[in-house]
């Protein structure tokens, strides 16, 4: 009888531990440090022209460098160089150049939601940190140069 109770308690403890691993980050989790270079390794992006680019095939360079983090807020620079024959987005009204496009961002209270907003453009990335080096992002911009896409970012 006692052995049965002990086994039951052990199983409950094991199950609780496994569930805890699978739960999303809680409000009191430590703030993740996201600084570093994040490479766009997978995904698609659809432009207002109807063109679709895929990651990483359509790009020579497609990355976001989070250059600074102060608590929950971030500064970042996006670098995008589309391969010849691939679609090119816009930064404001101008075609994207090889120079970096500035972004600012924030980590949510859950420690896993991340928003990155373009500076000088209206594109936003809404991301989820799925592990410490992987972000799953939805990206969109409404308007004359609309786009919609999803991107996996992996930190180098």
């Amino acid at each position: 009888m006692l052995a049965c109770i002990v086994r039951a308690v052990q199983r409950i403890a094991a199950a609780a531990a496994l569930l805890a691993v699978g739960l999303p980050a809680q409000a009191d989790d430590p703030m993740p440090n996201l600084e570093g270079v994040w490479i766009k390794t997978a995904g698609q992006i659809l432009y207002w022209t109807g063109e679709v680019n895929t990651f990483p095939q359509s790009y020579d360079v497609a990355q976001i460098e989070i250059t600074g983090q102060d608590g929950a807020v971030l500064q970042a620079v996006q670098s995008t160089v589309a391969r010849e024959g691939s679609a090119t987005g816009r930064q404001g009204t101008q075609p994207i150049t090889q120079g970096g496009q500035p972004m600012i961002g924030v980590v949510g209270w859950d420690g896993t939601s991340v928003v990155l907003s373009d500076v000088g453009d209206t594109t936003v990335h809404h991301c989820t940190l799925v592990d410490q080096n992987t972000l799953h992002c939805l990206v969109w911009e409404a308007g004359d140069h609309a786009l919609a896409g999803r991107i996996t970012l992996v930190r180098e």
Partner: protein
Amino acid sequence: MRKTKLSVLGPSALAVLVALAASPAAAQQETPNLEGTWTISDGRVLYWDGSTNHFAEDYVSFQVVISDQHEGVFQAAMMPVHDEDAARGYHGDEQIGADAYPMLGVIGWDGTTVVFADVEDTSASMCQLTDANTMQCIGWEAGERALAARSVLTRASD
């Protein structure tokens, strides 16, 4: 009886728990095909001037056609037909008529989050796919022609 109680946390149950623990909510899931004609069946939109529209009472019909899905991205067209006296928003500088308004869309890596972005207008919507043929959406536009909305989109099943 005692054995039955213990079996609740037996090997098969533990295997399920292991699988759950290994699958964080945002992990990559299969991408559903959303092509087809969706009808807005419920919800409300509030415009910058305080006027409102109710779905579907203030519309003769309001369809969203999703086409040309390529993996996670797709093209869409919004086709509202208002009742004659109903309030209506703007698309860019033009008051909404009975045209087809283009949108771009994307399905998130979780397989259930969907975002629509208007083309030539600054409205966007974020939706959750609650089953294969139903999406619950919130929409917004900031600025001079601001709006806030929520809606339910239903696809006619075959």
